[in-house]
Structure formats: structure tokens, C-alpha cells
């Protein structure tokens, strides 16, 4: 062959190789991957139509999405469903449940154990099943019960800008010792009173901050961006942490003050008796696809893409095959 022809052949082979590799690498379009398991479709049971359920949730994105997922899943199973989302913090949500305003809502085992049942953060079991059993036993003392946990777990975390962390040499929370008195901390209003929040930082880590400013949960990243907060309380499943991983960083919780909790659906025992077996079955079914990666993706669709929680819940249920 002539040099020209050889070169052309080489380029053609390289091209074909790259093409083959490219096709093999991803089955979907640009950069997207898939996560979570496929699900079996939910079957509608006409008997359930006699029961009306009101699904509640707490007041931040992940909770709103979860509430909608449960509500739409139960609807697909044939129940009459109403939603009363965005109730407030865990105390308010529990009150609503106890007052019968909602049939149930999603709670984190860690929050239940530390906020409701006064467990110390270090006593919260790291095994999800153990934490679930412990929470369930405590709830049952009050006529409530809980369904099995989600695959994913979430926890509070002390977060900051990566630049700040590098500047101050922060990798773990205890690195804040000796420095925290010059740093401002921002968190939700109820953070002031929670052991897995400000109280834990003050008692468990012995840290004093220059100031603590309560702001709406929705602003937890804004205050870091604006340079007003040196530190902000974030959630480990926040979309922003993976979408902008080079901007934000969370400090490692070395003294285990911020236990992670899987989500368990807390509900009234009477409602369970009334609603039949499909109640628990549907809840555990629709949540089985919620790995940490999937939950973060759903959070991202609301917090970054600014879609509505209801729409995102429907997308999740459809993409996972629970409804069509």
C-alpha cells in the first residue's frame, strides 16, 4: 500500500475503534446513566377504594418528593388519597399524625430516636434494621407503627465551601476546634434545639460559634454562596453536593453526632388495621427503588432543575415501572 492509503486505513480503524468503544460505554444519551432496580407495576385493588388516606410530609424537598411518591403509589393501588405535605418540622408532623390530621408521614429513624425518644446520637444504631426495630418499638408505645426502611439513609452534616475548607484545613468536624469561635453557622430554626444539630455541636464537639443564624432550610446553600455563612447545615442526600461537588464539601462527623437515618413511614396502627395489607405492601414496594443515588437524583430534579415534587414523583414511579 502507498503511505497515503496506509494512513487512511489507520485513521479509519482508529475511528471505528473509538466508535465501538463509545457505543459500548453508554447505552443512553450524553452522560446519563441509570440507577436503581426496575419495579413490578402496582396492581389496583378495588377494595382499597373504601379507604381514604392522607399523606403528610415535613418541610423540605426530599420529604415533599417522598410524600408524593407514597401518595401516588397508594393511589395506584386503589386507595383514595389526599396529601397534606409541608407540615413543618418533625415535632409538628408528629403532632399532626397524633391528632389524626394525617394518616402517616415519612420520618428518619435517626430523627425519631433523637428528637422524639431522646436517644443520644451515639446510641443510634448504624444498622438500618436495628434502628428501624428500635424506632418501631418506641412508636408502638404510642399507638403508632412504622413500615420497613428505605434503601437510602440521610443525615445532617456541617457543610462549607471547598475553598473555605482548604483555607482553614477542615476535613472533619473536630478540625473546627479552636477555630469555630470565629466562624458563623447557619441552620434551620429548629436546629437550635436538636441534638443532631447545634446542640450536638455545642455539647458533643464542645464548639462555640461566632454566631448561629436561623434561616429557612431552602436557603442553606445560598448563604454559603453569598459568603455570609462560613458553615451551613446540609443534608447528605442533597443534590447540590454531587452536582457541584467541587464547590461544596461536608465535614466528616468523626464524633458521630449526626447519625444517619433511613426513612420509615410512620402511621397510626388504627389506619393500618383499616387499610388492609396493601397499605404496607405498596409503601415498601414504591420505596424499594430509592437508593441514595436515586434519591439524590430526584432531589436534584426539584432543587436544581426546579421541577415540582409531584411531577418528579410521577417520573420516578413511571421510570421505575411501578405505574405506567
Amino acid at each position, binding site marked *: 500500500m502507498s503511505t497515503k492509503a496506509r494512513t487512511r486505513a489507520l485513521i479509519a480503524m482508529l475511528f471505528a475503534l473509538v466508535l465501538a468503544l463509545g457505543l459500548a460505554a453508554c447505552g443512553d444519551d450524553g452522560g446519563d446513566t441509570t440507577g436503581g432496580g426496575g419495579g413490578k407495576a402496582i396492581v389496583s385493588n378495588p377494595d382499597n377504594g373504601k379507604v381514604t388516606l392522607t399523606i403528610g410530609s415535613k418541610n423540605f424537598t426530599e420529604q415533599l418528593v417522598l410524600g408524593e411518591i407514597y401518595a401516588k403509589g397508594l393511589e395506584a393501588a386503589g386507595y383514595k388519597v389526599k396529601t397534606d405535605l409541608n407540615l413543618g418540622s418533625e415535632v409538628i408532623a408528629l403532632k399532626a399524625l397524633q391528632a389524626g390530621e394525617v394518616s402517616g408521614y415519612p420520618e428518619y429513624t435517626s430523627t425519631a430516636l433523637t428528637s422524639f425518644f431522646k436517644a443520644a446520637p451515639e446510641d443510634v444504631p448504624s444498622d438500618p434494621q436495628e434502628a428501624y426495630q428500635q424506632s418501631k418499638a418506641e412508636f408502638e408505645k404510642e399507638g403508632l407503627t412504622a413500615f420497613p426502611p428505605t434503601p437510602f439513609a440521610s443525615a445532617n452534616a456541617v457543610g462549607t465551601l471547598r475553598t473555605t475548607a482548604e483555607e482553614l484545613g477542615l476535613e472533619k468536624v473536630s478540625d473546627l476546634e479552636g477555630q469555630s469561635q470565629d466562624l458563623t453557622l447557619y441552620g434551620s430554626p429548629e436546629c437550635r434545639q436538636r441534638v443532631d444539630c447545634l446542640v450536638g455541636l455545642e455539647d458533643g464537639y464542645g464548639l462555640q460559634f461566632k454566631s448561629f443564624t436561623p434561616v429557612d432550610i431552602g*436557603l442553606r*446553600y445560598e448563604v454559603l454562596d453569598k459568603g455570609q455563612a462560613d458553615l451551613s447545615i446540609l443534608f447528605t442526600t442533597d443534590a447540590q453536593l454531587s452536582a457541584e461537588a467541587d464547590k461544596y464539601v461536608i465535614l466528616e462527623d468523626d464524633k458521630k453526632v449526626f447519625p444517619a437515618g433511613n426513612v420509615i413511614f410512620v402511621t397510626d396502627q388504627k389506619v393500618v388495621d383499616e387499610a388492609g395489607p396493601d397499605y404496607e405492601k405498596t409503601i415498601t414496594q414504591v420505596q424499594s427503588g430509592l437508593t441514595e443515588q436515586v434519591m439524590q437524583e430526584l432531589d436534584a430534579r426539584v432543587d436544581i432543575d426546579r421541577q415540582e415534587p409531584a411531577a418528579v414523583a410521577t417520573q420516578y414511579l413511571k421510570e*421505575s415501572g411501578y405505574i405506567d
Partner: protein
Amino acid sequence: MTDAPQLAQVVIHERTGESCIAQNKVFCPGWAIDNFDRYVDPALQQVVLVVVSVALGFAIAFALALLAHRRRWLVPPLIGVTGVFYTIPSLAFFFLLIPISGRGRDTAIIALTAYTLQIIFRNIMAGLANVPREVKDAGRGMGLTERQLLWRVELPLALPEIIAGLRVATVSTVALATLAAFAGGGGLGEEILSNIDFKTGIVIAGGLAILMAFAFDVILIGIQRLLTPWRRAVPA
């Protein structure tokens, strides 16, 4: 990614943080156009809140004005009581009412209605007071009863002032109705509260509220022109 063929899976999008919406810019036109229908229901809820509250407020204020028209001594105490409703911040009013009327639209309407009373009442009284003496005397001279005088002479002449009061009340109520979300009454404020850091969303919701106020103002000016073709519009 997965090791066994699955029925269906959740698509994990790769986000680069480059898009307008990912950067949470002040206004993202693309997103606004795609998602505009999200704001339609809240806007309609707000319209209902405003129309009902102002209509109720007008009805009550008008009844009070009729009452006080021949009993001047009633005016100061009525101004005082309606003034209390006007001075109490709406948010406080909502939460004072909630133990009594619960969360929801009704509470929002009661508070918003109460707020409008003083301005409407005051303007009706001022309008009636501004009717020239000679006109009233002429009317009486023509044999009109006091009642006929009121309805056929005084009120029509007082119309510009009354509508000026309605305009102020309506514009203020539109702005206040954005707070109805705190009382569970819906409206554009709900969109703002549930996405408190979303700049484009705040701009859209706030912008719609401002436009709504402007639209109501224009409509009321039009109504005034229709009802009083002999007068120029009185600046509020």
C-alpha cells in the same frame, strides 16, 4: 451500571451546573416559558381572594357608610374600629384568626376583608361630604326625598372618590394576598414560600402579583369612566 436486565430504571441525569436554571440566575426565560402553567392556578386563587375580599369589604363599608350618613357621631368610632383592622399586620391577623376559623381560604378572606374596610369607608364618607351643598339643596327643592337624594344625587357624585378608595383597597389587597400562603389560603405566595431561594420563581410570582394589581387598577378606572362619563378620573 446494573448487572441484570431490568424492566425500567430511573434515569440519572448528568448535571454540569452550566445551565441558567442550575446557576439560579435572576431570570431564566427558557424555564419561565416551559413552566409558566405552574403559576396559573396560584394566580387564579389570588384573583379569587382579592375579588371576594374587596367585594365583601365594599359591602360592609357601604352598609356602615349608609348607617353613618345621617348619624355623624358614628363616624369617629367606626374610623377607629376599622383603623384597628387596618393597622394590625395581616400576618398577625391570620394567626389570630386561625384558632377561630382554622387554616385555609376563609381565614385569609376575613383578614383581607377587614383590612379594606377603613379605606373604603373613609372614601365613601369623603365622597359624600364633598357633594356641594347647592346641589343637595336643589335636589330637595325639586321634591326629592332624603332617600332619593342619596341614591340619585349624592352617591353618583361621590362615585369617583368611592372608586378611588376601591382602587387603593384592591391594589393593597393584591399585595397582601401574597401572604395568604402563610394561612393556608393559597395564592402566588405559596410558590414563593415553597421555593424560597429560586430567583426566577420569585420574579415570576412577584411579577404576576404586580401585574395583577395593575390590571385591577386599570379595570376599576375603566368602570369609573363607564359609570361617570361626565367626570375625569380622579387620581387616587
